């Protein structure tokens, strides 16, 4: 007879694993990736490939040579996700050397300095994007137009829907908003004149990703619904107050709010651990995004809203506790 194995209970394990969750997120990002290839062509392929490759390389190298860890964490899939999400925040005509700097910031500064997967406070992709935005404001705010199949660095750029909204609010002229594409076009990504970041462009693709992740129970509904719901309600109230503010559907479908609500804010490590906490987090992000968009100097508020709330996550975790069994008074 062989040896008897002992340990304390439980002696069984479910099907959950880090790889399954990470690869599930990557699959959920595929529709958005294909949409960005379709709308932005060669540029988007180059930017995505560079970003993913750079993030993976930096994670592998830092793990092996600087941290000297026993097992390289490259294979758990989180570096690939950071690479994809960083790429989806960038314009498709960004030069390679800038992407490499962004990847180095995202993985090296935002993730590895804190101790690797599970220990970072801020979302790595967003930190990378924020760093690039501050360091290279010109390159990071010129957005190529859609439909240019084989251009990369020399793509023609145009105004994004968000910049149109910004212009309308600043000038106080509601008629500028008529230049916005229809909601239907925004949904599918057909911004004929305008443009945007690679991953933000097609709301439909992002929603496929959301449906997949909810089905596989990778994320729960609390964060996306509370962010989009709050943004919708708040921008709706503003729109009713004054026509210079865009209608809530346009607000939800422009810029990075869908990408952020579905993929960036739901990042495990940087979001709160309880459903109640997640709703508070989501409501605050929705609110802050609209505030920064309408009254801040940047047209896009999502990244900064999420980064600000990332800082509050430990506080939310400390004070918002799940409902304990037995707190409910006996029903008669």
């Amino acid at each position, binding site marked *: *007879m*062989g*040896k*008897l*194995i*002992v*340990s*304390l*209970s*439980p*002696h*069984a*394990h*479910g099907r*959950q*694993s*880090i790889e*399954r*969750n990470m690869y599930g997120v990557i699959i959920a990002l595929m529709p958005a990736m294909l949409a960005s290839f379709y709308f932005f062509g060669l540029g988007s392929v180059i930017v995505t490939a560079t970003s993913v490759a750079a993030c993976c390389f930096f994670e592998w190298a830092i793990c092996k040579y600087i941290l000297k860890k026993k*097992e390289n964490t490259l294979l*758990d899939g989180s570096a690939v996700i950071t690479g994809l999400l960083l790429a989806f925040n960038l314009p498709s005509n960004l030069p390679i050397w800038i992407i490499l700097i962004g990847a180095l910031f995202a993985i090296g500064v935002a993730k590895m300095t804190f*101790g*690797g*997967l*599970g*220990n970072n406070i801020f979302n790595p992709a967003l930190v990378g994007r924020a760093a690039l935005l501050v360091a290279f404001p010109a390159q990071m705010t010129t957005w190529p137009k859609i439909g240019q199949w084989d251009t990369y660095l020399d793509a023609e750029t145009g105004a994004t829907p968000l910049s149109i909204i910004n212009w309308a609010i600043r000038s106080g002229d509601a008629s500028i908003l008529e230049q916005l594409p229809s909601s239907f076009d925004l949904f599918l990504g057909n911004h004929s004149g305008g443009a945007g970041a690679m991953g933000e462009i097609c709301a439909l693709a992002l929603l496929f990703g959301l449906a997949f992740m909810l089905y596989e129970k990778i994320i*729960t509904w609390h964060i996306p619904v509370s962010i989009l719901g709050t943004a919708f309600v708040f921008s709706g109230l503003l729109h009713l107050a004054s026509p210079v503010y865009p209608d809530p559907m346009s607000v939800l479908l422009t810029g990075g709010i869908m990408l952020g609500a579905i993929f960036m804010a739901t990042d*495990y*490590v940087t*979001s*709160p*651990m*309880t*459903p109640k906490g997640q709703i508070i987090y989501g409501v605050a992000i929705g609110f802050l995004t609209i505030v920064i968009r309408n009254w801040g100097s940047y047209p896009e508020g999502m990244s900064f809203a999420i980064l600000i709330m990332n800082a509050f996550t430990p506080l939310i975790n400390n004070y918002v*506790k*799940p*409902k*304990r*069994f*037995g*707190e*409910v008074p*006996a*029903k008669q």
Partner: protein
Amino acid sequence: MNIKTFSIGGIHPDENKLTHEAVTQKAALPKQAIFPLSQHIGAPAKPVVQKGDKVKVGTLIAEAGGFVSAPIYSSVSGTVFKIDTAIDATGYRKPVIIINVEGDEWEECIDRSDKLETVEAHPELTPEDIINRVKEAGVTGMGGAGFPTFIKLTPPPTAKAECVIINAVECEPYITADFRLMMEKADEILVGLELLMIAAKVTTGYIGIEINKPAAIELLTKKCAEKFGGSKYNVEVVPLKQRYPQGGEKQLVDAVIQRQVPAPPAIPVNVGAIVQNVGTAFAVYEAVMKHKPLFERYTTVTGKLLQKPGNFLVRMGTPMQDLIDACGGMPEGDNKLLAGGPMMGKALTSTEVPICKGTNSVTIISGEEARRKEPQPCIRCAKCVLVCPMGLEPYLLAKLSEVKNWDRCEHEDIVNCIECGSCQFTCPAYRPLLDNIRQGKAIVMGIIRSRAAKN
């Protein structure tokens, strides 16, 4: 129809009810029966026999060692070989009584017939009679915990019992002993429930069964209607959603009567419910009506690698090796031997450990399934928080226990943990959450006890 279930958390492990249809067989008598003196919660029993004494089936071999304790009766006839130490389910050597088996002679007072004795035929039985007989017969919780039943039937003065809930849920994978008991001894179980209701002085009873046992639900519903319909008793069979840990007594009370037992030291009777395992109800029937003390039980012997897994009516004291041999022998290679199911069972270092009062199953898991993967850092996915049935935060409690921050552990309600294992089952990073929490809980409970003792 809305199927009832408990309010918070829960998981769905694979069922693996391999022995669902296997009719119970009588296990062969062992050559030597081993009786650990500590088979229940409370003080170990004290031996009343010595080497060389002759015993029959049903002879008292150890008396209760204190108030919270239970006597032990011989399940075999033969000669006491020695009073020694042997490895029991705790993994340590503990005092045991070893009896060499000779023949199968029973004590005369035990009624061995199959006749169903009803309460109507014995109107003289008072609640005190029932509780005394249960106490003398050494009946303890058969669901695994082993709490002496007579104490549960006498609630403290601050609590008033309103109903008896029979736990026939059997939510752990693999185990089918309770199911087979219900299919084969339904009438006796209902008489047992009636006796429990008389002893607890209540007229409301519930039987909670998971919906993966439709045959049992149907059978018991029919028999309940026949027996209790129109009587002063109000007995309901409650089908429950298949979810682990529905069989935990707090979760069962929550699902059946929608009342949540508050944090320890509160117990189910503080919200009016007395919970008893269905095997205990059967043992109560046998103890009171058949004058049969507790010495045999229904046990499932199962595992994917066993040739012939089955359900057995086994005399306590039988070494597990005998049962495993009856199922085709221990499988090749390294395996895990569990007393109980895969979620809350105890891993054993020896196959000679005997079947005790709380051994509802012997489960064998193959080496590959048994070995744990290397733990990875916590990715803060919060899945453990979602599944915890007590509304706790396992990732936090495990971390606090690791860094030995006992004050904060207590503040975060670590003593509420029922050690069900849902968190560790779910964790994608394979972190040993329950191992850490269990340690922290034991230390915090010790701190609370010593603080209470000082005051």
